[in-house]
């Protein structure tokens, strides 16, 4: 079965590229205008169209793209003038840093909340958790982001503003991983580290809240189902402690399903939280993808979509592997 999952990756990616490529070509934006600008005279327009190969038949264009792709060449982005691969290396770490921090917070907070809410179903605690998680799913992220900035940054002054670092630290940390918190640690630059961490806190919390809401609700639903199982009654009848019943027997049984939920939540964060990245001026993949799309910068859009697709595939695969570890029946 695992081998089958591996084998399906190239096919899925091919489909993804094909669809994205076709959407890019039928999009009602002329990519030449995106490059040459609205005011460009006809001869410049023609030269750019020729250079991009847009005069060639669609299939030929697609073939050329595929051949380049196999050679690891995703083409050049119009917007940044750099190769798309270099851009992804530049933009993705910021998203990875943000998404990983957010998902860790979301899991650490969300899963226990869900478990306890289920354990005390109908209690006051359960109601509070429900309100908190419903709010997390319904309040738009940009409202939450701006509200956070307004309260913690403007009014209380305990959090920094937008961006990854204060201007004073800009360009001080040598780039290794692209994740500033990690890079400043590697450099042993504690001032930059605290500054980067402080800048990370708000967007990560906003995203974490959003994810947490989802994780909590799913955990609660799974747990309620699990707690009503006959094996729970058996466990209780055996005289096991309440926490052992809850965690070992009830939670143990939902772990498998939860892993899928968590993997998808993480993938969702990794594709770049466009709105959060915009509000907090976080130079991540979401920002890159949106700006590229609006500029009809098709090489960049294709490249970034490919990365997002890969992330989903890898995390799905990872969830499959974890299934095997967590559930002895799947082997």
């Amino acid at each position, binding site marked *: 079965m695992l081998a089958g999952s591996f084998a399906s990756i190239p096919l899925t990616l091919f489909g993804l590229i094909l669809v994205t490529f076709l959407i890019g070509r039928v999009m009602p934006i002329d990519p030449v205008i995106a490059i040459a600008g609205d005011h460009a005279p006809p001869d410049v327009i023609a030269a750019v169209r020729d250079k991009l190969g847009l005069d060639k038949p669609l299939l030929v264009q697609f073939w050329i793209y595929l051949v380049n792709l196999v050679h690891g060449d995703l083409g050049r982005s119009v917007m940044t003038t750099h190769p798309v691969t270099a851009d992804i290396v530049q933009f993705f770490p910021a998203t990875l840093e943000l998404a990983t921090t957010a998902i860790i917070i979301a899991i650490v907070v969300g899963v226990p909340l869900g478990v306890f809410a289920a354990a005390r179903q109908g209690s006051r605690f359960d109601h509070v958790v429900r309100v908190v998680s419903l709010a997390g799913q319904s309040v738009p992220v940009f409202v939450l982001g*701006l509200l956070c900035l307004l309260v913690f940054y403007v009014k209380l002054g305990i959090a920094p503003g937008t961006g990854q670092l204060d201007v004073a630290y800009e360009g001080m940390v040598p780039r290794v991983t692209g994740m500033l918190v990690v890079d400043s640690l590697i450099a042993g630059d504690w001032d930059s580290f605290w500054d980067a961490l402080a800048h990370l806190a708000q967007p990560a919390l906003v995203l974490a809240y959003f994810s947490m809401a989802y994780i909590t609700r799913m955990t609660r639903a799974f747990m309620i189902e699990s707690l009503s199982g006959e094996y729970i009654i058996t466990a209780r009848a055996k005289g096991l402690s309440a926490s052992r019943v809850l965690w070992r027997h009830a939670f143990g049984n939902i772990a498998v399903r939860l892993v899928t939920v968590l993997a998808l939540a993480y993938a969702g964060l990794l594709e770049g939280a466009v709105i959060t990245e915009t509000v907090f001026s976080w130079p991540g993949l979401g920002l890159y993808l949106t*700006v590229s799309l609006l500029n009809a910068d098709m090489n960049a859009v294709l490249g970034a979509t490919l990365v997002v697709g890969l992330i989903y595939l890898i995390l799905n695969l990872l969830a499959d592997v974890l299934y095997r570890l967590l559930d002895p029946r799947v082997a």
Partner: protein
Amino acid sequence: MLTRRTLLASSAAAVAAPAVLTQARAATPKGIAVMARRIDDIVSFDPAESYEFTNGEVDGNCYRRLIRPNLDDVTKIEGDLAESWTVSPDGLTFTFKLRRDAKFDSGNPVTANDAVFSLHRVVKLNKTPGFIITQFGFKPDNVEQMIRALDDYTLEMKLPEEAEATSFVQYCLSANIGSVVDMKTAMANQTNGDLGNAWLKSRTAGAGPYKLTEWAASDHVIIDTNPQAAEKPLMRRIVIRHVADPSAQLLLLQKGDVDMARDLTSDQLKSVAGDKDLTVVSSPQGTSMYIAMNQTMPELQKVQVHQAIKWAIDYDAIANNITPNTWSVCQSFLPDALPGALKSNAFKKDVAKAKQLLAEAGLANGFAATMDYVNTSPSSEIAQAIQADLAAIGIKLSLLPGDQKQVITKTRARQHQLAMLRWGTDYFDPNSNCQAWCENPDDSDQSKLKILAWRSHFVDQELTSESQAAVRELDPAKRIALYHKIQQQFMERAPFAMLLQQDAVTVLGKGVSGFKVGPMPDYTQYSKITKA
């Protein structure tokens, strides 16, 4: 045992810790000015290619040109790298004497050879803004003879075809495209005969007060003092941070984390008006908002319909209610900032008159049409106001919102009925806009001039030839008079309703001053910015 309470408390503490550990900074570092603006328009910093707002502005502070308009009176052109210059009586030969004390950031002296090289590469590379120079008739095969260095500090430029208005030539040379590039540096970094284009996309090699230190796309631009600059700027570093969201820009400014906010909306400007710590500086721009009426649509071919639409719109209501401080009424194709602008608005909302005009056109019952517009603020709000105004005279407008490039693609393909768009002048001379809106010598798909008149199938032989004559008029006073006449005729009969002109507004933080906004992005000056 880990109770629920301790678990909750400890996870809450873990989450809150990073926020508590920091103390917010109240000011930007000394010697550094930070501005918040959208910078995702940047494509290239090479002056031969640079054509967007942000890179144009940065280039304007990193490169010097032969000549440049006086920022206090933009109708006057002054020497920049040129100490003096002469124009032959026939208007064909321009001779520039260069100053001898200017140096590039590399330390190389600025010579006439660099200036010649820079103009040659504009013609040879022929990128988007190249037409500003090539429109005089320069081609890769004649430019070497026509633009030459007579000695190390003298440049001679001969116009290959016919004489053009001297002020027109001078304004074109004073645009960003006329920036003087360090030849030695550019050629040392040439790849595949590109005259340094690839290298200069993300670097500068000029003699301006600043040099580009770092550009991270959609994140930040950092420029530092050019160590060789004759006049040292007051701030040693300018950091331009990409802050896409205007509300976030305002928050950063109010907290003192940035010194300038560049893209605040009308609403936000209203809210800062009472704040004594903040200063608002603004300058009218060469950017217009207009409605184009495609002449393929039979109803839109009648002059009375053009007039009716122009009389139906409540210009003042739009400017006062939707775009106060950011866009003001301008009904001419030359915004007030440009030389030759008419500066008078003939139309105001008059429903009875507009209805009568429609009746004269035989459309007393009105008609239905679509209008494409860009789906961002304030275009969306303005489009809705226009829809209501036109409904009052019986024109039923269906609004078609789209992304900016999508609407442009559609109007370039001439597939719109009505379209509301913005247009920025290419260089600081009336010809840029006059040609765009009035000239359409060839309405076919093979036309060499596919600008605004062509895109709406607007063919007016008289306006076309008047515009072509005005750009060649050597007498400055007569030339301005010609443009006044063309603007009047255009208002009366052209299928374009000119609505608004843009004001570039920047809000300066506490103690910040000296920021000079120009009427063109590349005229905006950073070197006098200072902080108390």
